[in-house]
């Protein structure tokens, strides 16, 4: 677009210089006077009774200032309501790596030495590790008594209405949530089918693997006010959790967001901030606590493991008949997983007239789960998009044609009976269908092309922002939003466009929880969509106030004025003008008759704008080694309107790389007794520069009626289609199905051997 001042332009991130020079400050970089270093002692067992903890030797070590166990804490329950409330284990540990004691010492080495001196006597108990076994009667129970499920994280992503099946008994069970969706006559649908595909899919636990391990710095003042420097996705959400866990009013907690080195959904639940605050309270000194990478992998909050039995049917003419799915999600030791999203996408992307979906969220003695970019959506998309290719092959119908015939459109019913909001699924499919990478694909031995499409419903949350004009006429956005990967730059562009100035005339600051206007958590692809709308409203309000001042100065009606080239002028009479810097001056000067410009924007968007993404992979499979090489990768995404194409491409490329990781290499591997076997980045393999080709991007723009300037959420969708696109490409190259992720060389070789033996 050429008729914009800022929207659609590749504006550089103002904070980019800080990040390339090492001057940007992350929590681990902070050092304050009197600061102590915190560390946690963690359980080596997945499930055990704590018989005793002896901390005397640790307390006696020179340099140790404090050792805490659950016995020292007032508010820790033996059956905590959530992972965040399980500050230290009381009586029993329920996953390997659960903190049982914490130390604050003069330096980190002394703190670590102190951990070795703490003696814990455990009675090892049988553990529920495999989710299918954990569902059975007689399995070791994760909860000793029933507590209400905490769904606050699912709320943070605010996806869609669920169909929860309420439990009929008060007895605790490892099945923490059940959901059920049904429509039409499924049995009849399968009877009428000419082709039926049945497959069981498995997506293991994966880790979000942000490069910055969790870190927190906490201190208390003499009046009992807590200040936390945090690496978090939402300052207000963190403040609320801390106040709840520590039993103090929110007004006595200040959260300051430092730069965050990646979160991807995991840095919503506060799993280190409460203990850091308690160590600081006990010692009356600032305490910094930073996790190691192995602590992150063993004992943080990975994405859940999911097993899906999926059955679909179709008639020879290509019409779809029925879909039946059973989804089991292993969420580890606390409930609150994205089961609903898996079920809705698995059964909701194509128009099956009859469907039945049963979902089970299962507790196991493993680290509890957290969101990971579009939580649940890659899982649901992987199973249905794998199966659409299998159906197309069995029917002898082109896989693109089958999808275009049956993909949902706005208004079609989702499995929960609600209509699909306005969306661009078809436009994304169309973009793939007419792309040269699809049209000009060639048949060659061991080579294949695959694609998949999936979506993300998009989160909703009320938001507010202010836009202030300063004395020199420049503008300042004040927000409580955490900038994960560039949304602040998009906010500057939104405000600039609304007011009529260039983006470099607008600055932005993240205020702390004491002074920021409320903003929701940066999650669920709702930052631009919701907070961006608040910024737009605040900018519109500021513009009105600017015009009002100019109107009095120029003696012209506000409607006759325009803002252009740093001036407010009368339309058609450019010589009658006042500069923005003059307005800044007259609105703040001593004795001025004008009021300062303070634009205020508050919004609550209530309509979702799902974002769809599609990806196409061209691969070569080495039949000898089973190695899969990605020759070409194209990422397509409907973002409504690309506020900043550079930033949107970055989301598309980074999300693609994460989806490819889920497809080809990432998996947390647990032993039968629940110990993580690959707790390092050498053994837990994320994509490196040599694993990937350049990721091409195709931005599709189907404007949202609700997002600012038509924008939709851009962050989550690009992780969604990757696993299915890769599986379909490898299937195209080998003729074998790969329902069990990741598609490792070993699995490829085995599948080829099995295929050769049966042919």
């Amino acid at each position, binding site marked *: 677009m050429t008729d914009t001042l800022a929207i659609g332009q590749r504006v550089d991130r103002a904070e*980019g210089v800080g990040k390339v020079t090492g*001057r*940007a400050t992350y929590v681990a970089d902070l050092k304050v006077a009197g600061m102590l270093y915190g560390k946690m002692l963690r359980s080596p067992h997945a499930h055990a009774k704590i018989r005793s903890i002896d901390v005397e030797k640790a307390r006696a070590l020179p340099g140790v200032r404090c050792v805490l166990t659950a016995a020292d804490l007032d508010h820790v329950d033996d059956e905590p309501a959530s992972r965040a409330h399980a500050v230290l284990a009381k009586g029993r540990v329920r996953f390997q790596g659960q903190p049982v004691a914490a130390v604050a010492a003069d330096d980190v080495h002394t703190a670590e030495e102190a951990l070795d001196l703490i003696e814990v006597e455990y009675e090892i108990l049988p553990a529920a590790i495999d989710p299918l076994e954990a569902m059975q009667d007689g399995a070791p129970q994760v909860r000793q008594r029933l507590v209400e499920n905490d769904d606050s994280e699912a709320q943070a992503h605010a996806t869609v209405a669920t169909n929860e099946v309420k439990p009929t008994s008060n007895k605790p069970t490892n099945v923490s949530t059940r959901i059920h969706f049904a429509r039409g006559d499924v049995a009849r649908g399968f009877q009428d089918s000419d082709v039926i595909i049945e497959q069981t899919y498995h997506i293991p636990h994966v880790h979000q693997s942000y*490069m910055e391990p969790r870190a927190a710095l906490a201190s208390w003042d003499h009046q009992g006010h807590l200040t936390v420097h945090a690496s978090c996705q939402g300052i207000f959400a963190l403040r609320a959790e801390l106040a709840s866990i520590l039993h103090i009013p929110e007004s006595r907690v200040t959260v300051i967001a430092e730069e965050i*080195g990646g979160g991807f959904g995991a840095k919503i639940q506060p799993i280190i901030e409460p203990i850091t605050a308690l160590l600081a309270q006990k010692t009356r000194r600032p305490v910094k606590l930073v996790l190691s990478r192995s602590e992150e992998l063993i004992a943080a909050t990975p994405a859940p493991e999911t097993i899906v039995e999926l059955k679909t049917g179709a008639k020879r003419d290509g019409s779809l008949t029925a879909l039946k799915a059973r989804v089991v999600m292993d969420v580890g030791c606390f409930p609150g997983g994205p089961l609903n999203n898996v079920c809705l996408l698995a059964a909701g992307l194509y128009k099956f007239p009859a469907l039945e979906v049963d979902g089970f969220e299962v507790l196991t003695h493993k680290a509890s789960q957290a969101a990971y970019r579009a939580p649940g959506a890659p899982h649901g998309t992987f199973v249905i998009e794998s199966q659409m290719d299998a159906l197309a092959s069995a029917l002898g119908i082109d896989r693109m044609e089958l999808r275009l015939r049956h993909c949902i459109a706005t208004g079609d019913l989702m499995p929960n009976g609600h209509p699909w909001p306005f969306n661009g699924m078809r436009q994304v499919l169309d973009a793939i269908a007419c792309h040269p990478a699809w049209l000009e694909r060639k048949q060659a031995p061991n080579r294949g092309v695959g694609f998949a499409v999936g979506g993300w419903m998009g989160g909703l949350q009320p938001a507010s922002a202010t836009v202030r004009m300063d004395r020199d006429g420049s503008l300042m956005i004040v927000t409580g939003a955490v900038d994960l990967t560039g949304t602040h730059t998009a906010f500057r562009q939104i405000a600039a466009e609304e007011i009529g100035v260039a983006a470099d005339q607008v600055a932005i600051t993240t205020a702390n929880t004491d002074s920021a206007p409320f903003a929701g958590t940066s999650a669920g692809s709702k930052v631009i969509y919701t907070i961006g709308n608040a910024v737009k409203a605040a900018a519109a309000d500021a513009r009105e106030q600017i015009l009002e001042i100019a109107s009095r100065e120029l003696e012209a009606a506000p409607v006759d004025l325009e803002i252009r080239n740093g001036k407010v002028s009368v339309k058609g009479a450019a010589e009658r003008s006042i500069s923005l810097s003059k307005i800044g001056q007259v609105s703040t000067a001593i004795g001025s008759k004008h009021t300062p410009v303070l634009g205020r924007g508050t919004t609550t968007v209530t309509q979702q704008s799902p974002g769809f993404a599609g990806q196409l992979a061209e691969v070569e499979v080495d039949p000898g080694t089973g190695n899969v090489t990605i020759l070409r990768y194209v990422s397509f995404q409907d973002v409504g309107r690309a506020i900043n194409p550079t930033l949107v*491409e970055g989301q598309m490329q980074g999300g693609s790389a994460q989806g490819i990781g889920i497809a080809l290499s990432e998996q947390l591997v647990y032993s039968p007794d629940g110990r993580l076997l690959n707790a390092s980045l050498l053994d837990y393999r994320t994509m490196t520069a040599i694993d990937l080709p350049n990721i091409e991007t195709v931005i599709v723009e189907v404007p949202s009626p609700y997002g600012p300037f038509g924008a939709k959420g851009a962050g989550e969708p690009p992780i969604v289609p990757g696993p299915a696109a890769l599986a379909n490409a490898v299937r195209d190259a080998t003729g074998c199905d790969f329902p069990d992720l990741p598609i490792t060389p070993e699995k490829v070789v085995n599948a080829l051997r099995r295929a050769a033996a049966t042919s």
Partner: protein
Amino acid sequence: MSKQILHLTVNGEDREILVQPYQTLLEVLRDEIGLTGAKEGCGTGDCGCCTVLLDGKPVTSCLVVGLQADGHQVTTVEGLESDDGLDPIQQAFVRRGALQCGFCIPGAVVMARALLNENPNPTEAEIRWAMAGNLCRCTGYTKWIEAIQDVVQEVKA
């Protein structure tokens, strides 16, 4: 254990500091000298966030004992910037949007500088191999490659 004296040159400045014999070069840089640009992403040499130049060669400073650097030259990300401004690699990373959360970027730009010092005209494959030890979870590396290729072109022109 008692502290020992470490003499080294960091970003052109001579330093004489007391360090514990078990402190890593990364700890020395971050905790004793206050240069927090290099980051600890793993502490086991797998992620590359702590990459610095030791006598011009890239090392993961979390795997170097501080005292091993005695008498040597260290360049950190802070040393890439000069009075003339940012290193062209730093400029290209900003312009290309090759950074998102930014945590891995100090290590990445130092690694890219080491590559171009050694090989001013690398192919895409050579760039990918050189950067393979620097993990990034945000970008998918495409914009890294473009940024480094931009610098190669600028130098040629």
